[in-house]
């Protein structure tokens, strides 16, 4: 019983917060500001708590298992959620349904936690849905905005469709192996064509959530449509969680098929990097731009995953950690600007440096980190992904990836150029950034610079498994 509490600690904490919010809601309620700060504190505590009592073990007859690495992954996610709650506080204060928003977000987080540590297709499916459906609801949170509801509609329909495909795959897998628990399935795999079909169906579900080409098309629309908080949540938290479970599924469950999924990953990775970059080239809306850039980033994550060893896992986790900081910094700045001026176009950023040097530097840092330019952490993250991917000595694969970095640099520099170089007759007026947001941005900036140079972080990740 005691074990139950330690192993499921993080899930339980999140659930507790959710219920607390629920009670506050049905109780007499609170003022937004105080509630927000309360939640922020709680999330911070949740994040800190994530560092303690991390054990290896499983529950419910192998349906749920956790390791220090998984705990760390969960912690990355809760950190991301905490940062989001800080970064978007301006917007959150204004929204009418703060408790609901957090309830949805946290239950999605809960779903992701369960998903990461699920070791059984049933749990996996349930948690996946739990991680998806609330987000769809969140996507619609700007109730009066047309685009918001359109995005939400697209999201819910496509995700339902993809889960339909996923389920069909699961059913086939069940049919051929007669079990739904990962280890037993691994034992039963014989590479029959039905299983391959099932595998493809399964992978598409991950591909959908990770927005891998050609299953990515919903991403940009949903990102653009939904509020900034949701967009950043989608782009960082849900992507990260799915990446983690994807690794587990491939490395554990489908280990026997590794040759096959290596090829699959190579194809998907190249397609994703290329298409993502090519679309990002001509985006005007900053959210859409970041959406496609994050698609391209996923391509790099796939390169790392393809290595099929601990290096791969470590590299991906490390990269996601860096990605959290970089992407959230970018979204955070975009959110601040959108919140104060309602401007979301890159052209509006022209001459930003003149009026808002702080925001410009943070955004520039974030973009450089995303582009993988030293001394930012992104450089190390990307390089380690490629190092992991290079283990199979497929130089041309690495080369394609490396060349994609050029395209990505091009469009990241577009924004930098807009902020620092382009003339603008009426640039944005100086924005008064609230201290909380400033704090969050500084944290992100520090993270972007520090994580790479403090090598022990990577060493620590490498040591967990």
């Amino acid at each position, binding site marked *: 019983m005691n074990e139950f509490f330690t192993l499921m600690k993080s899930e339980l904490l999140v659930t507790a917060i959710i219920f607390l919010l629920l009670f506050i809601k049905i109780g007499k309620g609170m003022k937004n500001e105080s509630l927000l700060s309360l939640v922020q504190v709680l999330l911070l505590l949740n994040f800190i708590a994530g560092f303690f009592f991390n054990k290896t073990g499983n529950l419910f007859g192998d349906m749920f298992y956790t390791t220090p690495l998984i705990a760390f992954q969960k912690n990355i996610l809760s950190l991301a959620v905490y940062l989001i709650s800080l970064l978007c506080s301006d917007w959150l204060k204004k929204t009418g349904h703060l408790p609901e928003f957090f309830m949805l977000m946290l239950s999605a987080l809960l779903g992701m936690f369960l998903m990461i540590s699920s070791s059984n297709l049933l749990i996996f499916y349930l948690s996946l849905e739990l991680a998806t459906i609330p987000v769809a609801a969140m996507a619609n949170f700007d109730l009066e905005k047309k685009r918001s509801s359109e995005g939400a509609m697209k999201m819910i329909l*496509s995700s339902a469709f993809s889960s339909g495909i996923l389920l069909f795959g699961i059913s086939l897998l069940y049919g051929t192996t007669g079990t739904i628990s990962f280890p037993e399935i691994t034992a039963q795999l014989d590479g029959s*064509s039905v299983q391959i*079909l099932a595998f*493809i169906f399964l992978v598409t579900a991950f591909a959908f959530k990770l927005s891998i080409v*050609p299953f990515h098309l919903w991403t940009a629309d949903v990102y653009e449509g939904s509020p900034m908080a949701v967009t950043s949540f989608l782009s960082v938290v849900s992507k990260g969680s799915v990446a983690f479970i994807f690794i587990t599924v491939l490395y554990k469950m489908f280990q026997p098929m590794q040759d096959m999924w290596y090829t699959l990953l190579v194809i998907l990775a190249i397609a994703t990097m290329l298409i993502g970059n090519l679309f990002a080239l001509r985006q005007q809306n900053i959210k859409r731009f970041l959406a496609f850039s994050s698609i391209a980033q996923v391509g790099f994550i796939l390169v790392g995953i393809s290595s099929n060893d601990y290096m791969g896992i470590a590299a991906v986790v490390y990269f996601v950690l860096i990605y959290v900081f970089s992407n959230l910094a970018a979204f955070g700045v975009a959110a601040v600007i959108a919140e104060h001026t309602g401007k979301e176009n890159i052209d509006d950023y022209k001459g930003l440096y003149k009026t808002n040097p702080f925001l410009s530097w943070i955004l520039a840092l974030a973009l450089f980190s995303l582009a993988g330019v030293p001394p930012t952490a992104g450089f190390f993250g990307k390089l380690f992904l490629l190092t992991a991917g290079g283990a199979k000595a497929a130089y041309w694969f690495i080369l394609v990836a490396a060349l994609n970095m050029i395209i990505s640099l091009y469009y990241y520099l577009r924004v930098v150029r807009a902020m620092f170089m382009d003339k603008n007759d009426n640039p944005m007026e100086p924005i008064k950034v609230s201290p909380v947001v400033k704090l969050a941005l500084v944290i992100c900036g520090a993270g972007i610079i520090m994580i790479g140079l403090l090598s022990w972080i990577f060493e620590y990740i490498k040591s967990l498994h």
Partner: protein
Amino acid sequence: MPNATIIALIPLLPLAGFLLLGLFGRKIFKNSSGLIGTALLLTSTVLALYTAYEYFFVYGKVDGVYQQFIPMKLTWLEFSPGVSIDMGMAVDSISVMMLVVVTFVSLMVHIYSLGYMKGEERFSTYYAFLGLFTFSMLGLVLSSNIFQIYIFWELVGVSSFLLIGFYYDKPSAVAASKKAFIVTRFADLGFLVGILILSNSSGTLDFNTMIATLTSPDSDAVKTAATSSFLGASALTWGAALVFIGGAGKSAMFPLHIWLPDAMEGPTPISALIHAATMVVAGVYLVARLFPIYAITVPAVLEIIGWVGAISAIIAAIIACTQTDIKRVLAYSTMSQIGYMMFALGVSKYGGESGLGYTASMFHLFTHAMFKALLFLGAGAVIHYVHSNEMKDMGGLRKYMPITHLTFLIACLAIAGIPPFAGFFSKEEILLAAYQNNTAIYWVALITSGLTAFYMFRLYFSIFWNKSHHTHGESHGEGSFVMMLPLVLLGIGAAAAGFIPFGEFVSSDGNPLESHFHLQFSIAPVALGLAGILAALWLYAKQNDKPAKLAASLGSLYKAAYHKFYIDDIYLFITKRILFNLVGRPAAWFDRNVVDGLINLTGNTTQAVSEGIKKMQSGKVQQYAIYFLSGVIILAALFIYIWR
């Protein structure tokens, strides 16, 4: 062994002058700069004379042969063990002789310029450049290492560039200086490659070692080099020939002579120093330095040298007859005289009596330095007086400038080879050498000597006689003392230098070579010289239209000669039309449009593609589903049917 420091001081003092005046001349030594430069040079002249005395009369001869001393040698840059650029000082008969010539003429010019350049805005700069030039020339003379000589060679080139372009705000001067530098530079390219070949086949850059290896026919270096041939000629032949091209460039040999006439844009004393007495003979000096190699290893190249010299001599003489700018006339005569020296080397052999040409060439170099410098300085005085270079603005000046007139006359007689003036003796020996070894060249030389006499006296008469001088500028006399002094000194030199028993001191292999005269032999040239003088007298002594008639009767030949046989135009065509329009412009265009275009193309195609595929993101959720489904199907098909 001569004292190293003394010899080192000879070039270093002018360098000191250059640094001093170059750095502080504009401010501190505004007025004293001329004197400083002159004083420094005076010292090094004295030192040079002292060295010469020591060398020739104290410890020059070891058992009857003039030795070469290397009192100092520092490794400057080592390429690989054995192959290194050394900064050394080779003291032997020719280098000592050159030391004397260079310092003496340079001193004369320094003194002369005190008057001539008076009141120049950049007076101190002028003296600084003079110092630089003198330094580099002396360094060149003393070089003991072929790369060292190349280094000073280049320095000489640049200082000549600076001095020609001294009036930098005069476009013609700028153009002339550029032309001089680039043409010589082009020749130096040959020199450089030649050095590479010679050094590579001899395994050293040091003159003595190189000569030693390359002249001993059984040394394997020579064997391999002789066998490794390129376009039918052996490596050594190429090397020697290319080195000679370098020399030809500096010495304004045909067809690399085009820069010399234009170089007269510089101040006249400069022309006297650089383009008459010293720099232009560097080529001759270079060939003399490497003479054993030419004479023993690659006589074929020596043959070429001889012919190049002869052709230059006669062509220049012909052109000189038609020019009207007095400095240009002198320039062409310089070219012609250097042609003499060249072919004298060309017809010479190594060692003993047959080495007469070598001695003669050096001798002529010596005497020519005297009278040609004199001629230029005299011309300078004239120009200074009438403020023009054109003959038509002159005439009847003998009354107004007696000293100039006298000295000029001496110089003319000397160059025309009339006894007992200096030119006579040296030219005599040259002709003799040619007669002994190569009759064809001898005839060319003979005709040339006639022409020489003619054009020189054409010059002389049309300056000092001809039409009576329409009066202008009586106000100032023919020039200050400082300007006259060098004329007189050089005049003495031009008159007397011939009596030096030159062969005693300078010969191809160091053994003294007593020079003897065959009177019956010297009749022909002298007669021709007198004939030339008489022709000039008949044509130019009085103002008349005979010259015009003559020119008309000669017709196209005269025209061609007047236009310098259109050589300049050919060069112009090659550079402007071909190099600029057919190479440079296309290269620039290619770079901007093709190479850069390709780079930009990649970028643009990426843009275009991203524009092209945007339809994929149609915004229709059902199409998304179709993509989704097709993705599934394609992957499934791939993995089930192809990679199974």
